[in-house]
């Protein structure tokens, strides 16, 4: 009997092996630069379920997580080694677009090597404090000797807090080392720290938390924060140079959760994907699923991203210097 089982397995095995080139052209791989389960992963998998419909041959997508260095590893792979035939696309942090400009350690990334397909989201990012903290207004936030939580020094929780602190001339202390947003929020709940930055307004709203936190200010505005009259950090900046620097740092958030092709991709392939992306983000079925997942789509096309990034690189040196200072 065991022999029979073996024989069956062998036959099945051979059949599977022969029919499976995992590199078949009908499957496209979407590589996500973050681990499974996070925000990027959610958006990426949503795209994977829909984008194929707008490409010739209706290919199916397969998602792989390639985390490392805050998507730096994947960005490097896309620039150096991934094939440009359209069989691989990636999703990395939008901050990679301006990383060579703002971060001395990122000079090896080529600004001209990014082949953007499009960005999915454009969300307001706010700083908030817990109800128990007693900090409710911008002035409280500016003057209070409070603790603001952040994870690593390279994370947006830190960058936004540092930038806000420098612009406002605030006196709060940034506590670093939390493992993630959940840990920071737990500490806020316990009253150990007062608040944090880099919170998406839409997720605060969808989780029903707007009643239990004080939204102090926003670093990127959208319709919702305008309606709620949340102060915008740019308005609180002292000089035009500061405002320009803020735009340089925060601007990439307008094309959050962006898709891109490897640097080796030809202009035709880039065009094909951009067209498919534009169609996808207009499709009601896609938008409906996104809404069900609480993923707010506010898309930016690849050409527009190129334009935006171009303006950042054309910034005068004083602005760039001020920007680097602000995120120190």
């Amino acid at each position, binding site marked *: 009997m065991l022999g029979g089982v*073996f*024989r069956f*397995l*062998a036959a*099945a*095995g051979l059949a*599977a*092996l022969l029919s*499976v*080139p*995992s*590199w078949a052209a009908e499957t496209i*791989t979407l*590589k996500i630069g973050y*681990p*499974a*389960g996070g925000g990027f*992963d*959610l958006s990426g*998998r949503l795209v994977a379920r829909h984008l194929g419909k707008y490409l010739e041959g209706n290919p199916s997508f*397969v*998602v*792989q*997580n*390639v*985390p*490392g*260095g805050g998507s*730096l*590893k994947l960005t*490097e792979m896309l620039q150096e080694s991934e*094939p440009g035939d359209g069989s691989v696309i990636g999703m990395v942090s939008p901050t990679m677009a301006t990383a060579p400009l703002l971060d001395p350690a990122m000079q090896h990334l080529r600004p001209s090597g990014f082949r953007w397909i499009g960005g999915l989201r454009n969300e307001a990012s706010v700083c908030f404090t817990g109800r128990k903290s007693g900090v409710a207004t911008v002035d409280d936030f500016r003057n209070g000797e409070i*603790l603001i939580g952040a*994870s*690593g*020094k*390279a994370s947006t929780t830190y960058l936004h807090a540092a930038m806000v602190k420098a612009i406002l001339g605030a006196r709060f*202390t940034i*506590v*670093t*080392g*939390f*493992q*993630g947003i*959940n*840990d920071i*929020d*737990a*500490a806020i*709940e*316990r009253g*150990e*720290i007062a608040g944090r930055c880099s919170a998406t307004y839409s997720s605060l709203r*969808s*989780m*029903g938390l707007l009643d239990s936190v004080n939204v102090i200010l926003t670093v990127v505005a959208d319709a919702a924060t305008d309606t709620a009259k949340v102060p915008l950090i740019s308005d609180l900046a002292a000089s035009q140079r500061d405002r320009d620097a803020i735009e340089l740092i925060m601007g990439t958030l307008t094309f959050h959760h962006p898709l891109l092709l490897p640097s080796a991709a030809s202009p035709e392939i880039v065009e094909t994907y951009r067209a498919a992306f534009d169609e996808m983000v207009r499709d009601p079925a896609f938008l409906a*699923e996104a809404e*069900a*997942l*609480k993923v707010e789509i506010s898309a930016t096309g690849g050409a527009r991203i190129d334009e935006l990034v171009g303006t950042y690189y054309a910034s005068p040196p004083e602005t760039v210097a001020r920007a680097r200072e602000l995120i120190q």
Partner: protein
Amino acid sequence: MAALAEMLEPLRLAMLVVGVCAGLVIGVIPGIGGLFGMALLIPLSFGLDPYSAIALLLGMSSVTTTSDTIPAVLIGVPGTVGAMATVVDGHALARRNQAGRALGAAYSASLLGGLFGAFILAVSLPFLKPLVLMLRTPDFLAITLLGLSLVALLVGRDPLKGFAAAGAGVILSFVGVDDQTAAHRWTFGQVYLWEGLPLGALFLGLFGIPEIASMMSRKAIAEPGSGVTTGVREGIGDTLREWRLVLQCSGIGALLGALPGVGLSVVSWIAYGFARRRRGDGPPFGEGNIRGVIGPESANNATDGGSLIPTIALGIPGGAGTALLLGALIVHGIVPGPHMLEANASVTVAMIFSLAMANVIGAGLCLAFSGALSRVASVGSHIIAPIALVFVILGAFQSSASIHDVVVLLCFGVVGMLMKAREWPRPALALGFVLGELVERNFFLSWQIFGWSTFLRPSFLLVALLLAGQILWHLSGRGRRGGALPSSPPGSAWNAVVVFTIAGFVLVTARDLPAGAALFPSATAFFLLVVAAAMLSRALLAARRGGVAGAGATAAADPASGRGAAAVVLGIPVFLAGLLIVGPLPSSGLLVAATMWWGGEGRTRSLVTGAAVALVVHLVFDRLISTPWPRSLLETVWSVLF
């Protein structure tokens, strides 16, 4: 209750079973953790209604700690981090041809532990919120420190080696980019190391490779002449007899699981330590005492229930897995949090029910297969070892889908084999690795938030007392038993030299780091210096007394084990080469087939088994989890030709 009726509907139960099966598969294969399963199943759950989604997701996450026992017992490799403590006595039992008994005891303990955890969850939910909110970051620091100290004392007969191994593990955990200062600690310019050494590859190397190597030098997993095969039923009987231990360890698991940051690895060791307090009728711990299996297994299943407590009560996830679950629930319109109990009592009931049922079904399925599984222990090692090796290598590759993972596997495989041969406790190193960074993180957070008053908190004083108590008990125990048991071998002075070198290297290289980044590594290195000094003085004293300097009691090098070790160590680069040339499927198949044929199996059987292994690898690593394989030479040629 309406919720219960909902959950008993056929679709829901079907989803539960699907989740359980997925969870069992994920738990069995070392290197794939519960997180992966969650990430895979969560999108599938979007199309379902909330109750079915809960059944599916909780079904999966509740049982990974049930099936992880299988590789732990059979090969000595924990399927997930929670089975690490089970390996010690569980694998020892398998070597004595009592795998069936170990598995039977483990599953029944898992089942009872899981049910008890669900019960505790149900009962304590209303009371726990104020309690959980009372804890502060310094308290978590105290708990992790306690966990670290426990393991060094628990495993192995020589506490000095235990401390040294734990210290080395702690230092290894610091490799990577420091969150505090963004300084690069021992990354040697590799982006790969920015996030630190990968846990999966390290564990598999440290535990898996030496066990496979030792398997190669035996005829089978079970050692020859190890007596009558005892069965699954006896194992179940053992668990029922030790019901007090089961309840105590489940309690420990459920309550500790509720504390954020504690984690499965610490819980299972604490439970093991607890079980060790009484030996019972069996052999000494470490040689197959069934209590050493029952304790950790009941605890780690109860932890699932425990970790749901902060998730449901506060909306704050107890760990990464529950964070994913939280996200999925929110997508379904269920917002866990303080309002959960009032507004969504039915959902809470559904979750507890799923947890309990999943444990029952999972344990039931595993028990049903236990008989067959225990016979694996008698299968020839030329069949089992290559199969195990293939899965260990592929499991390590899952860490970051990079060739470097396999390099880490190889390096730590060698380290693991050396440690095993020289009787250094590997679990101490593993736990030091898991907890080291956690201790540093909690320390800096406590420091930034509380400053000096961190150390004045009651939790710290309690931990200090417990620690002092442990040490005293250990020392006095040794004094009392001094006559009956041989005291630990003095060891050679070489042990001290090794520790001195590690400590010295760290201290020298840490000088270039900013103060915040250098603090903990340097402190640990100083601690290692103290340990090394103690080792040296002990060795010198023994030499003076015994007159035989440096007579480290190493077992005579067994030629067979040397060959087996070499075979395994060579097998890894060979497989890697195969991966790069022809791809994962042919490599897996060929490695298994070749080893079987060389071991004396017929050609057909070897090829067939090889094909079967390749099929399973494809199903799991291509279909279930899409693994980003490196582009093989064959693939490149193929795409050029066609």
